[in-house]
């Protein structure tokens, strides 16, 4: 089984966000970067499928700066076989630009599956996966919570507001992974040591002129200060009164 997993280096979700001097990006000073949590589900799925098949290759591909090599090495430590870094100074905010670059890299790879996390926790576009599929003309199922593969086909389940959709597809296919698909493994200590010897190929990447321009990044307005209405049962009537007359929500 040859599987590509597209991963992204993102700021840790616990990080406090400060806007950088340029007014359009975050201040990276002191920010810890991690492997996008949704990509972990994709990577774990790829590793399990390769293990089940008994043979194959898991390749991680990322678009990002030089520092993204560390993110690739985390994936290699979890068990991926090799990594590809599409190197650029800054990851474009435009998902379509990213998708085109990734599609160019993945096109001739002969992958049975291309896996993504359903979204990246920094810009939350949840678009690059299905865009890549459409660019490559491949079947695509998004936000997969359950996956069965059989020979050259597969069935995926995805949660929607209406319930659970059961979707059939043929391989090769693109899937984006949702929480609950599996439980990602921790990078084993031996794996961390082995990762040092696995190859990472860095390639330059170019983008078309931007048609998606971030004009500003700002912090959300603070919520108006609230109050504790009271303690215990005695406060309930007052709360109901406030919700009805002041907040007007019931």
């Amino acid at each position, binding site marked *: 089984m040859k599987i590509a997993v597209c991963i992204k280096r993102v700021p840790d*979700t616990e990080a406090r966000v400060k806007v950088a001097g340029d007014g359009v990006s975050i201040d990276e000073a002191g920010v810890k970067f991690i492997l996008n949590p949704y990509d972990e589900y994709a990577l774990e799925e790829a590793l399990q499928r390769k293990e089940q098949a008994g043979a194959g290759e898991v390749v991680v591909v990322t678009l990002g700066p030089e520092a993204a090599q560390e993110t690739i090495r985390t994936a290699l430590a979890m068990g991926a076989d090799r990594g590809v870094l599409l190197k650029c100074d800054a990851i474009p905010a*435009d998902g379509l630009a990213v998708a085109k670059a990734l599609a160019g890299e993945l096109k001739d790879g002969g992958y049975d599956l291309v896996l993504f996390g359903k979204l990246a926790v920094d810009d939350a576009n949840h678009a690059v996966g299905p865009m890549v599929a459409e660019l490559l003309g491949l079947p695509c199922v998004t936000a997969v919570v359950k996956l069965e593969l059989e020979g050259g086909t597969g069935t995926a389940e995805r949660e929607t507001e209406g319930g659970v959709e059961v979707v059939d597809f043929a391989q090769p296919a693109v899937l984006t992974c949702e929480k609950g698909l599996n439980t990602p493994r921790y990078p084993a200590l031996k794996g961390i040591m082995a990762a040092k010897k696995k190859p990472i190929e860095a390639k330059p990447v170019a983008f078309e002129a931007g048609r998606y321009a971030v004009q500003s990044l700002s912090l959300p307005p603070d919520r108006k200060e609230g109050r504790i209405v009271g303690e215990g049962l005695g406060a309930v009537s007052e709360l109901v009164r406030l919700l009805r007359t002041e907040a007007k929500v019931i």
Partner: protein
Amino acid sequence: MAGTLAVTEHKGGALRKVSREVVAAARQLADALGGTVDAIVVGAPGVDAAGADLGGAGADRVLVATHDSFGRYTPDGYAATIAAQAKAGGYAAVVVAATATGKDLAPRLAVLLDVPLASDVTGLAVELGTVVATRPVYAGKAIQQVALNAAPALVSIRPNSFAPGVAGHAGAVSNVNAALGAARVTVRDVRAAQQGALDVAEAPIVVSGGRGLKAPEHFKLIEDLARALGTAAVGASRAVVDAGWRPHGEQVGQTGKTVSPELYVAVGISGAIQHLAGMRTAKIIVAINKDKDAPIFKVADYGIVGDLFEIVPRLTEEIAKVRAG
């Protein structure tokens, strides 16, 4: 001529509430950019009924594309059909809802139309003829404003962010072709969610329970309160979902759903950053927790400190009375 295209969704033969919001957003853009609003409905034959009140939502024209295989959302077919209409119509903007379906569909449209996509948008403006979208990023910790310098400007809007459209438009219906696309995936089945359960991302009121409830059976208190409040959905913190008490679809928070209801009631939830990321944009937040130092009280508009096992049943009782009387 231009104008905007609203991509609608239907469920069980009726228009989904969020589609009225999509039309409203398309209307807002059309008013600023010039032109009319077309709403497109895609489905199996007979779906016109769902499109019937789109005029009332603010659409000037309703385009209906049907095919026998379109009874359920078919990614390739829907995308091909809508993209074909979008190209034919020469629209200045196309608006989709950022629902599970929309999040699957909009990226495909972006490629078919070769335009960038601004997704999960909470606000729209037009500056010097360019659509500028406001959207939350970094788990809601920051707000991004992006200018879309392409035609059409393609956006998906977050549910509960745009007020549903007002009446007073023609809503003339015309049929358009369905394009099948390559049919690369087949939706074989849809297993319905619990009967009548409102989705936590769409409901105007959400009542969420956390570890303070101590055991899965106690979620009955949350369900009772939600019922008393009317159109309310049940939500859950990550801890109780990870513990297996509630399904992942109910999880509110960074690795769950982001919700923007009118009213959010957090019961026995301490208010960890990951949870706040999922609900901090709710209009009114109420917190009930026995720990007065719990972080949730910092974002709550109203809070009660005390034993939820006493407070919640009483609250349910009083709300039921107030709503009945």
